[in-house]
């Protein structure tokens, strides 16, 4: 079963991480889900695939009332990101999903109607949830052609989707990166193969290096905290991507 952990808390403003499921079959990629809560409203980022819906739902129920989840954010269109959409709609029919306009007619194949989606233009957008403002940060072609990250300026946390992702061993339990040099080797292959554009990568590095970030939370792997955030951005800026290693 997945574990949920509060990673940020200031008054009624919280970030919850849902991660690490030892019972997950090994043919499914491990994913992290994040929830931002402000007052009695919450937003779930990259809710995950259909197969892990019971585990994610159960872990969230431990720390909060899941009926408070009124919003979803999908960084892109992949099945491990948003194929559970129809199940969340079954539970909460009024739920609204923020998603790149590019996928407006693709993701409804997983579920939802016109009313379900709040489209994000290519340049990004800001929206409010109770007392906090959230910013959809463009990350196109990293790896999806319509891709966004979500920045919470008040908490200084960036949800970075597949950027920063690392394929960790099954017995890894740390939620936060503790040894950057060791960890980054588990991220290298993923970034070189999945990220397709050096130009897009450089643009993203420049954009986020101007942001005030305490924690960078990827959808796979562990959280980069403090100095490791800058370390990661520098590492990524120097990394050639779009490499097909055929060996």
């Amino acid at each position, binding site marked *: *079963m997945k574990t949920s952990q509060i990673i940020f808390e200031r008054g009624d403003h919280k970030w919850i991480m849902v991660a690490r499921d030892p019972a997950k079959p090994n043919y499914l990629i491990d994913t992290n889900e994040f929830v931002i809560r402000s007052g009695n409203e919450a937003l779930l980022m990259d809710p995950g695939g*259909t197969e892990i*819906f*019971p*585990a994610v*739902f*159960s872990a969230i*129920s*431990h720390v909060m*009332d*899941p*009926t408070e989840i009124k919003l979803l954010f999908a960084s892109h269109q992949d099945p491990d990101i948003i194929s559970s959409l*129809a*199940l969340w709609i*079954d*539970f909460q029919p009024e739920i609204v999903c923020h998603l790149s306009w590019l996928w407006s007619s693709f993701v409804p194949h997983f579920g939802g109607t016109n009313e379900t989606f709040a489209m994000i233009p290519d340049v990004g957008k800001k929206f409010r949830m109770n007392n906090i403002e959230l910013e959809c940060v463009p990350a196109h072609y990293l790896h999806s052609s319509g891709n966004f990250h979500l920045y919470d300026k008040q908490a200084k946390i960036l949800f970075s989707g597949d950027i920063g992702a690392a394929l960790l061993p099954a017995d890894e339990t740390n939620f936060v990166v503790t040894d950057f040099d060791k960890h980054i080797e588990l991220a290298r292959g993923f970034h070189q193969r999945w990220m397709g554009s050096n130009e897009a990568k450089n643009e993203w590095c420049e954009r986020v290096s101007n942001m005030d970030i305490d924690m960078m939370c990827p959808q796979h792997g562990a959280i980069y905290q403090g100095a490791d955030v800058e370390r990661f951005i520098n590492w990524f800026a120097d990394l050639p991507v779009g490499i097909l290693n055929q060996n």
Partner: protein
Amino acid sequence: MNIRNNQETEPGTRHVMTLRTVVVINEKMKQIVRGSNRLYVISLNAMFASRVTAKGVGGFVEVTALLRDFSQRLEKLVVIITQKIDSLITQSALMVKKQKHNKLLFEAVSLSSGVSVPNHVVLSNHKIYDEVDMLSIDFSRQLVLCEKLMQIGDSLAVLAKVEAVSSADDGSLAPITTDMTETINHISENLLASQAIVAN
């Protein structure tokens, strides 16, 4: 044997608690857990307070010791109940997933001629509904046990109040006994509400 459009196995035709209902009960359980923790702290405070307050509070000390034991028992039972509700949430979420898949499958079959819903689908439907049913029954039993335990808690709280009044209390025990009674009432209310939801 393949079963075509079998009403009994079609998604949504058998009555089990919905995920939303289980979530509502889970929130009540969280209130009970908080109440049970609070009761333990109040009982401990009562024991400390009775040692520094007026003379002749021996009866009160005994009752608060019993209340502390009671709150520990309650906490143990609540842990078991919480585990049951955790399983119920997971199974209910799994059921939602199955219902969604099955709904699409049954719709497809209804649009096709000569195609039946495979047996394994029907059997797995039965299995998940049975599991949710069994968990619900087990959970209800635990709630009944909790209700019985709470009756003891009610009596102890009343007894604590009586002992506080009959002792030479300087007034410092009265707010504690009021707090005790309110906490126990709060737990009982959440328990009864949960039972009512399960019964419906």
